[in-house]
């Protein structure tokens, strides 16, 4: 996409339009936040804090990568937060149940991970089939399944908390807290998935088809794109990624309850849009989403760095910054 070489003759067109603010907007916002943070607290750029923020971004980050595909294809998924809670709950139940047979070590954990991925797959399939086969608006389907998953986890936990067997937790813990070469596992997994996502979005037919479907479903259908299949794949991919996020989340807290993953869906969608993906579909970029997630998590981190007038106002400041971050990428839409 870099060289402006065009067909045969030199194009008269003046450089590509609006690659400017729209592209660098989120990056500028991110840099501005980092600068503010560094000025406010010398520990902000410390290894520990950076690791904390990145690792914590991983859950929503991994989900938001999947969400980027769904939104690019003109869809939406409100159920991801509840889905994460539901998967975490079932995963814990599965692992606890396996302790007597498989012991408290890695076999149990691996089985739990497999279960998480399988449940994520199934949950994504459930949403996707209702949307593509029963042709119900994605908003309604996933609003419904949000309620369903949330209820189910509350019910599984009997209104309380599902706790992972204590010995299993000790073995599993390093998956969140340790890493390799000083980089925590969640960060590695997040970045790997983001990189993969970016490649899939830009360098595979699937990514292109998502954009085409989001841009104009009819056109995509007429161009031999398997619209329903691609969309379904998007929701399933998202489900599996929620499973992956859960795999990283459970070792952090070792438990799941009805308050797990509350509002993750809004955060994930916000990250996607802050990153420059269009809510109505047709255009998506995964790297933007990564930046969006980082922006959201940095705001929270920075708010903890300082003493505000009142913690009640945190939400207001967060809101203002989210809007400001996007103002940076606003385009002067002359024609449109």
């Amino acid at each position, binding site marked *: 996409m870099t060289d402006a070489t065009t067909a045969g003759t030199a194009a008269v067109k003046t450089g590509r339009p609006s690659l400017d603010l729209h592209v660098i907007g989120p990056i500028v916002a991110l840099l501005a936040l980092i600068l503010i943070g560094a000025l406010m607290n010398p520990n902000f750029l410390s290894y520990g804090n950076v690791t904390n923020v990145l690792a914590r971004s991983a*859950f929503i980050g991994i989900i938001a990568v999947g969400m980027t595909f769904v939104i690019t294809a003109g869809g939406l998924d409100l159920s991801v937060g509840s889905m994460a809670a539901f998967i975490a709950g079932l995963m814990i139940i599965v692992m606890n149940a396996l302790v007597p047979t498989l012991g408290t070590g890695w076999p149990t954990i691996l089985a739990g991970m497999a279960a998480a991925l399988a449940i994520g797959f199934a949950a994504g399939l459930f949403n996707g089939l209702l949307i593509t086969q029963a042709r119900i608006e994605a908003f309604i389907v996933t609003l419904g399944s949000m309620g369903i998953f949330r209820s189910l986890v509350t019910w599984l936990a009997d209104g309380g908390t599902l706790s992972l067997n204590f010995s299993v937790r000790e073995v599993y813990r390093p998956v969140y807290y340790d890493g390799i070469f000083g980089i925590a596992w969640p960060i590695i997994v997040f970045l790997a998935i983001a990189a993969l996502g970016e490649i899939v979005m830009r360098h595979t037919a699937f990514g292109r088809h998502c954009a085409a479907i989001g841009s104009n479903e009819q056109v995509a259908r007429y161009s031999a794109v398997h619209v329903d299949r691609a969309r379904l794949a998007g929701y399933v991919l998202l489900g599996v990624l929620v499973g992956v996020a859960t795999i990283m989340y459970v070792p952090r*807290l070792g438990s799941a309850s009805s*308050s797990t993953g509350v509002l993750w869906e809004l955060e994930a969608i916000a990250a996607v849009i802050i990153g420059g993906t269009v809510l109505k579909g047709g255009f998506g970029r995964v790297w933007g989403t990564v930046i969006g997630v980082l922006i959201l998590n940095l705001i929270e981190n920075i708010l903890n760095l300082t003493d505000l007038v009142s913690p009640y106002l945190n939400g207001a400041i967060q809101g203002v910054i989210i809007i400001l971050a996007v103002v940076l990428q606003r385009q002067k839409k002359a024609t449109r």
Partner: protein
Amino acid sequence: QDKATIGVSIPAATHGWAGGMNYHAQAAVNRLEEVYPQLDFVLATASDPGKQVSDIEDMMATRNIDALVVLPFESDPLTGPVKRVAEAGKWVTVVDRGLSEEGIEDLYVAGDNPGFGRVAGEYFRQRMPDGGKIVVLRGIPTTIDNERVEAFQKALEGSGIEILGMEHGNWNRDDAFTVMQDFLSKYPEINAVWASDDDMAVGVLEAINQAGRTDEMWVLGGAGMKEMIKRVMDGDKMIPVNVTYPPAMIASAIEMTALKFVSNAPVSGRFIIGSVLITPENAESYYFPDSPF
């Protein structure tokens, strides 16, 4: 003496009691910062357990806290992270909800959730010796709510009091209003309501009022909201008593933790603040008209 930083991590004010608790936490912080210039406080409120863990991580990584006062959103998920704070040699005060592992905290200040349910249940027993029909509003589905309701049910065992229905009112006035309206449509005879929280009691009372069935039943809330205590004090027939669960316990915990850094007073240990029945006789001593809750 050296400067010390105390981190305070509490759940956000998503319902009335938590709101009161937030108020007391902030008031305590403001007061102590004034009195003891050598103390620095970091106050963070969290809307879910994951966020609370993040807050604690941030306090450790960037604010270099010397002590942590935490009211865990939920016991289980916070156990590991708080344990790590303790292991880093910081002072840990746990408030209200105990951690899942014994012996992590230096100081424990808590209310008594099973006691809260038990005291309420015992009052019902005493007030309805011949049994009766009641409905129950539950809070947000959490361990706390489970403990309270279990203890309540246990206290009623064999009393002849029948629980017609239980629904979640989520410690929320509007939800409680809706649930109570529907209870009133559903059950032609209700002798009493355990609203289990004063915010929910507000909604419940309004619904009963609207249905014009004020003479038929009375309501027991809980947690000691000032308006409710006032009505107990005034001998309101519909609100005969209340049960304490003081949101101000967070202030006590913060103060006791602060003492550790400004004096040599021994402050470690366990302080359980029992739930007490507030009756018209003793209501005066629980009435604080200036508190927001």
